[in-house]
């Protein structure tokens, strides 16, 4: 059993790999440090208060070991930074090809999903807004889902653990993020920024479907909403 929830996004694996890389550095540093800490406790332990060696550590000869350790730490840090940099850029920037554009609006206490309507453009009169607790956001698999994230009242945070994506929703701002789910299924959306009494009930789903199922869903959604095309 993996320690992470199942990864279903295109960039999730990179984050998991990053974890194992950092863990390798950290485990090495941990065991070395533990040795440095525990070994002298055994080797130099003394029953009685007794005279010890006089080492002030001001000499280069003595301090060089610490310098080496610090340079090692700095180097491994920069290796991490170098490795992660591309993934960071990938997640935080908008992909050139957006297959589906939607808007996700947080409020106390629900996630509101706005589908762009038949024209595929948000902010037009044919947008369809779904504001129901425990509702599902339907998305097609293997498609770049680009979403605008907003908040109506306080700060919320959009967390889709299975894609490894998290982003705060701030009132007054629109943040654009994206994900691409590779496996059909129903995944939890949760709010990770404390936002009031029903913070723990702010749970919706992403329902990843095959393109055909998604087409079917949107068609029926848009048809059902044709008369009431009011948007906000």
């Amino acid at each position: 059993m993996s320690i992470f929830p199942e990864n279903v996004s295109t960039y999730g694996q990179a984050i998991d790999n990053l974890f194992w890389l950092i863990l390798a550095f950290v485990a090495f540093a941990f065991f070395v440090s533990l040795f440095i800490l525990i070994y002298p406790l055994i080797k130099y332990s003394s029953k009685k208060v007794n005279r010890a060696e006089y080492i002030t550590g001001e000499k280069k000869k003595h301090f060089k070991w610490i310098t080496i350790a610090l340079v090692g730490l700095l180097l491994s840090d920069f290796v991490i930074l170098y490795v992660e940099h591309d993934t960071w850029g990938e997640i935080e920037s908008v992909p050139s090809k957006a297959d589906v554009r939607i808007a996700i609006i947080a409020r106390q206490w629900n996630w509101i999903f706005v589908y762009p309507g038949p024209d595929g453009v948000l902010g037009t009169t044919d947008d369809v807004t779904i504001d129901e607790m425990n509702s599902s956001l339907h998305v097609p698999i293997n498609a770049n889902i680009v979403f605008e994230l907003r908040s109506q009242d306080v700060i919320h945070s959009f967390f889709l653990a299975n894609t490894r994506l998290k982003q705060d929703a701030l009132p007054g701002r629109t943040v654009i993020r994206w994900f691409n789910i590779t496996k059909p299924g129903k995944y939890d959306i949760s709010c990770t920024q404390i936002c009031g009494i029903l913070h723990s009930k702010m749970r919706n789903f992403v329902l990843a479907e095959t393109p055909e199922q998604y087409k079917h869903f949107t068609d029926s959604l848009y048809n059902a909403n044709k008369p009431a095309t009011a948007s906000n």
Partner: protein
Amino acid sequence: MENLHHKKSFWSKYIFSTDHKTIGIQYMVMGMFMAGVGGYLAYVFRYNLAFPGKSIPFYGMLGAEQYNAFVTIHGMIMVFWVGMPVLLSAFGNFLIPIMIGTDDMAFPTLNALSVQIFFLSAVILIASFFVPGGAFGGGWTMYPPFSAGGYLNHNPDFFKALFSGTSLLILAVALEFVAMLMGGINFLVTTVNKRAKGMTPWKIPVIIWFLNIGAVIFMFSVGPLVAGAFMLLFDNVLGTGFYDPHRGGDPMLWEHLFWFFGHPEVYVLLLPSLGVLAEIVPVFSRKPLFAYKTIIYLALLSAFLSVLVWAHHQFVAGIDPRMATFFSIGTILISIPFAGIFLSYMATLWGGKITMKVPMLWAIGFIGLFLIGGLTGLFLGSNTFDIYAHDTYFVVAHFHYTLFPDIFFGFFAAFYFWFPKFSGKELNPKLGKWHFWLTFIFFNGLFFLLFFNGLAGQHRRINDYSSFSLISREPYQTFEQIATISAIGLILSQFIFLYNFISTLRSNRKSVKNPWESTTLEWLSDSPPPHGNFNPYPVVYRGAYDYSLPDVPEDFTPQNVPNPNNN
């Protein structure tokens, strides 16, 4: 008549005293009391997490609103009403004058005022539980607009808004800042101005350096937040829109102001404890502190870097992605001085003659646990992994692995070390060891498994995980229960300490002047030190860590012993 006189002297001696030692003890006792309150809150919400929907012994049912308030106030208390008073104020007030060889702080009246304001702030904080609506429940970070009442109602009822949990919390924190600023002024002026003759900068013990660096960091990072707190208070009581985006304000402003203070604040908490280690480790390894000067330089460097890292708390808050890389580098850089300081402490052990007395046990436990806390920081300092780990239990476990050793292990190490000095009595070392081992084991039981909960995607500050399929499954629910049982064990093992403390105070196991054979000046004074501390005042001839000097018969040479080569 006799009785009246006695009563008066009790008040002036213990409550309204201006003596730095009494004030230090007042801060310590208040901090310990608040730790009890914070621990109780933790017990209640941890019990709720492990056994959701069950009635909690010694509390009852816990609703979502109280749950939010409890986690919020728990964080607030542990940082501002336990960490700050115990580490900065109690150590600072008790130790600074006596370790630099003087009679009292520079401004004793200001000092007394600071402790009274601190008391008032604690009262207001606790009172906020009992106002209509209860205590504030939006996280200790108090992000607006949730904390800025004005976003719901542009014309709040002034008095109702003033006596809401939110406003009272802001007021309490503001007063606490004022108390700490007064203390900080005192620390700096005392250390600059009132050092014993011969106590040149490079002869000052590390803890005094660190307390002052901490005070400086605090003073220069808290200012903008004080301004921000005024704005938040006005948003609440007057209905202004400083943080309301619909009226031109910006909630992100608070995040920046808060973390510009909030991150340096963890170094304000860390530095005094690191200072405690610097005093304890050499004493019990009978060796000079490794690289004393370098440690001071590293701490100064970290003070400078501490104001360059704040936005690593906001990697997923919607800041500019390029900015995140800058703050990631800052975070990497600041790990270097602290790693250097810890490595120097470990290097001090090598070649020593180590006796595992109780204070040393706590010191080593601190280093060991902080190792985990510090290294897991590497995961979170990486902005990419932070996208996933942010606001999960991974973060919770990480900062408890740093702050718990820092605040509690640091405090207990100091307490067992200096108790003979401030009371003149000797604690029972056997009970001290029991206290240490139980605390150590239960602490790990409490937080280690939570790392895995965090990696499984468990996010923070949720009172009921039943609707989240990723978390409400095994083994994560069992991990929660193990954590809660350990938390109860952790709290119960503190009663060993309380028993040891009280029974020792009532016993007459007198301690000698310098039980640990240490070199610093406080051990020259009587135990407990009289008013005025020294008679005559000492003259300093050497650094604070002259252990096992060659060509000297004793294995320690106090700071007031003249150097034979010079005289």
